[in-house]
C-alpha cells in the first residue's frame, strides 16, 4: 500500500495525515461532519484521529496528556468550523493547522506568565510547519527505535497486526493461541512499546 508496510524506512517518508478519498465522497463526508452526524464522527475518529494524534504526540514530544487534551480541542474546532470540502490534501492541511492551533492554545493555557515571557521569541507560524515535520520525523525515528528494542516475538506480533493488516483471529491461528491470548499479548507489547517510545523521545530531548 505505502511505505509504512516497512517500518524501518518510514522515517524517510513524509508523514501521512489523511486517508485518500474521492472528492464527492469527501464532500459528503465533510458535510456530514459539519452536520454533526454520529456515524461520520465515528469514522473521522477511526480514520483521521490516529494521524492527528500522531502529529500531536510528535509535537508534544510524547506528552500523552497534552496530546489528548489537544486532540479533544482539535475535534471541537473541527466540529465548529468544518465545511463541505472536495480536496483531500486541502482537508488534510486544514486538519494539521487546526491541530497545531489547538495544541498551541492548550500549551498557552498551561504556561505561566513567566514562561510566556521567556518564550516570547518563540518560532513563528512559518517555521512551525518545518518544526512540526521535524517532530514527526523524530517520532517516526523513535518508533522505529522502540520497535527495534522490542522482544522479537512482540515486534512480529505488532508488525503482523499493524503493518501486514492481519486480524486477531489470523494471528491466533498462526501462533496457535486463542484470540484472547493474542489480544493480551498485543496489549502487553503495546504497553512495552509505549514505555520504550517515551524513553526514546525523552532521550532525544
Amino acid at each position, binding site marked *: 500500500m505505502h511505505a509504512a508496510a516497512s517500518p524501518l524506512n518510514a522515517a524517510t517518508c513524509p508523514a501521512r495525515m489523511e486517508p*485518500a478519498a474521492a472528492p464527492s465522497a469527501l464532500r459528503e463526508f465533510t458535510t456530514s461532519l*459539519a452536520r454533526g452526524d454520529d456515524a461520520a464522527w465515528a469514522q473521522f475518529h477511526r480514520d483521521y484521529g*490516529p494521524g492527528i494524534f500522531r502529529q500531536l504526540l510528535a509535537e508534544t514530544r510524547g506528552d500523552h496528556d497534552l496530546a489528548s487534551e489537544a486532540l479533544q480541542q482539535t475535534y471541537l474546532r473541527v*466540529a465548529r468550523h468544518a465545511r463541505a470540502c472536495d480536496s483531500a490534501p486541502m482537508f488534510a492541511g486544514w486538519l494539521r493547522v487546526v491541530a497545531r492551533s489547538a495544541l498551541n492554545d492548550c500549551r498557552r493555557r498551561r504556561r505561566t506568565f513567566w514562561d510566556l515571557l521567556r518564550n516570547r521569541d518563540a518560532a513563528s507560524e512559518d517555521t512551525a510547519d518545518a518544526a512540526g515535520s521535524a517532530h514527526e520525523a523524530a517520532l517516526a525515528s523513535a518508533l522505529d527505535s522502540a520497535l527495534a528494542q522490542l522482544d522479537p516475538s512482540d515486534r512480529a506480533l505488532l508488525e503482523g497486526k499493524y503493518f501486514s493488516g492481519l486480524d486477531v483471529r489470523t494471528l491466533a491461528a498462526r501462533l496457535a493461541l486463542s484470540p484472547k491470548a493474542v489480544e493480551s499479548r498485543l496489549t502487553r507489547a503495546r504497553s512495552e512499546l509505549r514505555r520504550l517510545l517515551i524513553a526514546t523521545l525523552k532521550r532525544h530531548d
Partner: protein
Amino acid sequence: MTENPDPRARLVAETFNDDWNTGPGSTFARHAAAHARRRRAMRRALAAGGALSVAFAVVVFSARFRVPPNRPDVSNDLPLASVSPAFEIISDDELMIALRNRPLLVLPQETGARKFVLLDR
C-alpha cells in the same frame, strides 16, 4: 468512503490508547458531533430569528412611511338643492293626510305605468 488510516499512526494511537475506537477519544468524537449539531441548530434559529426581524422591520417601516391613498375632493360649496332627490317617500298616514278625502284619479299610461291625478277643486 476512506481507506484505513496510516498503520503507523494507528499503531501510535493504539499504543497510547488501547481502545482507540471505543475509548476516551471516541467520546471526544461524540462530544464534537453533539457540539456540531448544537451549533447548527443555533445557527438555524439565529437565521430564522434574523429573517423574522427583517420581515417585522419591513412591515413596520412600510406602515410608517405608507403614502395615504388619494381621496375624492369633496367640496362644501355645492348647493343643497342639487343633491336633494326629485321625489320623497312618505308613509300611508302621511299620504292620507295629504289627500284629505279628496278623490284620486288613476290613469294607466301606454308605457304600462300609472299616473295619479288629484281631483282638487
